[in-house]
């Protein structure tokens, strides 16, 4: 419980209507995009950096745990307030502060919805590439806190490649500014990058300086079909070795293809072992076309049985519709799904998929595999029914085996969703004791009282 006098103080900072504590509100802020739930004691929605700072100062003084939250699309339960205390809702920080066309840099507040920001800059002929599949329902702040990636990462990189500077509020309420508009900057330690992917454990991000690019004018998209999974995996490297860097190479395995087809009837090849969706883009039409020709040739050389290049925007959308529908199609198959997010070296993709299939058979639960093959980021999704304790137990065993396998192949636990609480049990296996101890030390410097998003990302020291 938070004392009434503290509630009054918080109300004075952000306004009465932005301090929420009705039973309905507490339920509404008890979940994210996982199946985890835990209610906070209070929800506070500040409107700018200054208000965040004042709220944090009060929470620090009163020893109230604070969990930052964007739009709650996180997939690692990192914004579930297990510790009780305060959910700091950042969606009201939603202004685009500046778009500096000359320097191609934008200043935005943390609560701006990523898709809104992209649409705004694209209207000006500019481009903000990071594109997590949750762009419409996640915030820039959440993307930064998770270092979000997406299909376009192969060519354009992840969120951290576009963040030049941050304004953040420390647990004590102090305001920290990192980086700046200068592209090159090695003055001091790189605190900007330290906050990227910190999952709300080090500081509350309130503003960001984001690097923009000119918008690519032309795009070609192809769907490539394989009867052998290995052939698909080989194609990825073969294309890159030819000197072509596609914007995306997305992989779907046979189970994924069949699940989507069952639900959408798009006419996908249900007998195929895998599909790749490959997209080339750029500002010169001829180059983009030529790159797609190379892609098609290399794919055939690697054993593709069919290469279908979209001839219109409508056809292109149709190709993407399948990929975008993966998650929801899965939900229609079984009541629950646990979407994992391992990342392996590209060359290990075939082996990783083979082993996942073996694990699926061993535990007798369906696992579908899809993901960003171009950068080795796979999303094995386990389909199950949480009400069956036995199934849930098997899911836990499967997760453990998948993570063990990823690390063994030289990969890691998460490529983009983060550790949150769901992946903590495997952290030591992935990082080792020393790395964890150093990270705990860094956490102490930022958050000596351990009040900011406690219990997330790494175990308390």
């Amino acid at each position, binding site marked *: 419980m938070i004392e009434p006098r503290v509630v009054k103080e918080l109300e004075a900072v952000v306004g009465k209507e932005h301090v929420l504590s009705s039973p309905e509100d507490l339920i509404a802020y008890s*979940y994210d*995009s*996982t199946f985890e739930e835990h209610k906070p004691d209070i929800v506070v929605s500040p409107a700018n950096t200054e208000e965040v700072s004042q709220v944090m100062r009060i929470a620090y003084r009163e020893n109230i745990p604070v969990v930052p939250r964007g739009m709650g*699309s996180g997939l690692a339960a990192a914004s579930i307030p297990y510790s009780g205390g305060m959910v700091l809702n950042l969606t*009201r920080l939603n202004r685009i502060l500046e778009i500096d066309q000359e320097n191609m840099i934008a200043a935005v507040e943390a609560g701006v919805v990523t898709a809104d920001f992209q649409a705004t800059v694209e209207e000006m002929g500019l481009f903000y590439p990071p594109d997590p599949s949750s762009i419409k329902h996640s915030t820039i702040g959440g993307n930064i806190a998770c270092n979000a990636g997406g299909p376009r990462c192969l060519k354009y990189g992840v969120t951290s490649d576009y963040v030049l500077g941050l304004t953040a509020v420390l647990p004590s309420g102090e305001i920290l500014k990192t980086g700046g508009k200068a592209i090159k900057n090695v003055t001091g330690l790189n605190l900007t990058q330290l906050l990227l992917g910190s999952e709300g454990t080090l500081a509350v991000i309130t503003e960001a300086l984001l690097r923009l690019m000119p918008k690519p004018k032309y795009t070609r998209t192809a769907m490539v079909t394989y009867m052998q999974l290995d052939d698909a995996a080989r194609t990825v490297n073969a294309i890159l070795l030819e000197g072509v860097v596609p914007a995306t190479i997305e992989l779907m395995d046979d189970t994924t293809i069949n699940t989507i087809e069952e639900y959408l009837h798009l006419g996908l090849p249900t007998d195929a072992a895998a599909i790749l969706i490959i997209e080339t883009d750029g500002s010169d039409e001829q180059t983009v076309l030529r790159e797609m020709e190379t892609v098609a040739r290399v794919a055939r050389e690697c054993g593709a049985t069919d290469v279908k290049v979209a001839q219109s925007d409508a056809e292109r959308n149709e190709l993407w519709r399948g990929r975008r529908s993966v998650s*929801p199609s899965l939900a*229609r198959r079984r009541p629950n799904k646990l979407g994992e997010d391992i990342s392996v070296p590209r060359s290990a993709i075939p082996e990783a998929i083979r082993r996942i299939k073996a694990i699926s058979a061993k535990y007798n639960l369906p696992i579908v595999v899809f993901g960003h093959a171009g950068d080795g980021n796979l999303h094995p999704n386990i389909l199950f029914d949480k009400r069956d304790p036995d199934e849930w137990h098997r899911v836990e065993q499967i997760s453990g085996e998948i993570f063990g396998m990823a690390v063994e192949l030289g990969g890691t636990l998460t490529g983009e969703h983060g550790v949150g609480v769901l992946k903590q049990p495997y952290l030591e296996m992935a990082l080792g004791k020393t790395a964890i101890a150093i990270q705990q030390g860094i956490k102490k410097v930022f958050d000596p009282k351990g009040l900011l998003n406690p219990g997330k990302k790494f175990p308390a020291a």
Partner: protein
Amino acid sequence: MAQRRRENIPHLPTEEQYLNCIRCGLCLSACPIYRETLRETDGPRAHVVLVRKYAEGELDISPEFVDLMYKCLDCEACNAICPVGIRPADLAMEMRQVIHKTTPQPWLKKPIFHGYFPHPLIQELSVLPLLLYQRLGLQTLARKLGILKLLPRQLQDMEHMVPELPARSLRQVLPEEIPPMGEEKHRVAFFLGCFQSTIFAQESEATVRVMARNGCRVFTPKQVKCCGMPAAGYGDIDLVKSLARFNIDLFLPLNPDVIVTDCATCGSTLKHYGEILKDDPEYAQKAEAFSAKVRDISEFLMSIDIRAPRGEIRARVTYHDPCHLVRAQKVRKQPRDLLKLIPGVEFVEMKESDWCCGSAGTQILTHYHNSLAVNRRKMENVRATGADIVATGCPGCQMQLTMGSNHYNVNVRVVHPIQLLEEAYRREEAQIADETSTGE
């Protein structure tokens, strides 16, 4: 307790469906209310969870809970976007039924829904003061003197919503049967909505005339009663059912090819009679047959071979998709095609044409600030088109857009598409009359 609660919500999703809500949050991106308040509690994802908590006995119906369910615009944008097929907007409407049954209701509700909406004559009398106000020049005077400035802004906005009223309700003046001009090709029963009869009479007059011009014999039963939507919106499903039975008995014996309405809201309710009465042994089949015949006017006109008018309307026109047309009835293309039939019309598509305008029936009364905030987004999109005219096929939207254009100073005329079509036909006739009178 949980069991009893479950039984109260007829279409409460099964546990399977709850679990199916993967809580991805995509619905937040489409919810006009969430996008204004930025508070999770106002969004569809929270509504799914809250209704579940209620059904499981973990949450009681509090005034805040009631308000959340009533704040929902029922624009169905969340229903349409949910990748898993959960229908959060429907869930809110069903909760309203539970609230209606289980919690004490405001004393005004009964007279309004039982004494007012089902009785056309009472409705007609009720607009009398407004009519006098307009006709006796009081409106002009009040506006000139700036008296309205003294009223709170909400009243001013409401004052601007209502167009000039007809002297007598259309229900009273429209003949029950209108023969086609020329050869008879279709037998149409026209469902005259309450608003169309008392406030937007010119439009429904235009609707009937356009149909007659295109080979329709039009029947408009005078005893027609409210389609039931207002009662549905306030959770009184029993009243909706009795209105549905009445209208079915009134319309089916006419044996029409189609039942046409020019009100998006009426259309969406009438098309649901089959669903609403599906458990009624006596009416289930009849209701199904009734609903199968229902068409929105643009849907109907575009399905028959209508003749394009030759009269010109030189204007830049944009179109707002009423929620009850675009999502509830999947009518998107036809009104646009209808507008494009008119010579001289320069059609411009607005951004987010299917984003709710914030009307949702009575939101301007019950949730004034949200309603206005949602409307701001709409008016900005209208403004960006540079259109002279914004067309839309729903009286609620028309009033809200008119209010908004005044509130946000956007210089547009708000019309029903059918009005423009009828205007073009009339201009054509005037031209012909001109030509013949000059003897050329």
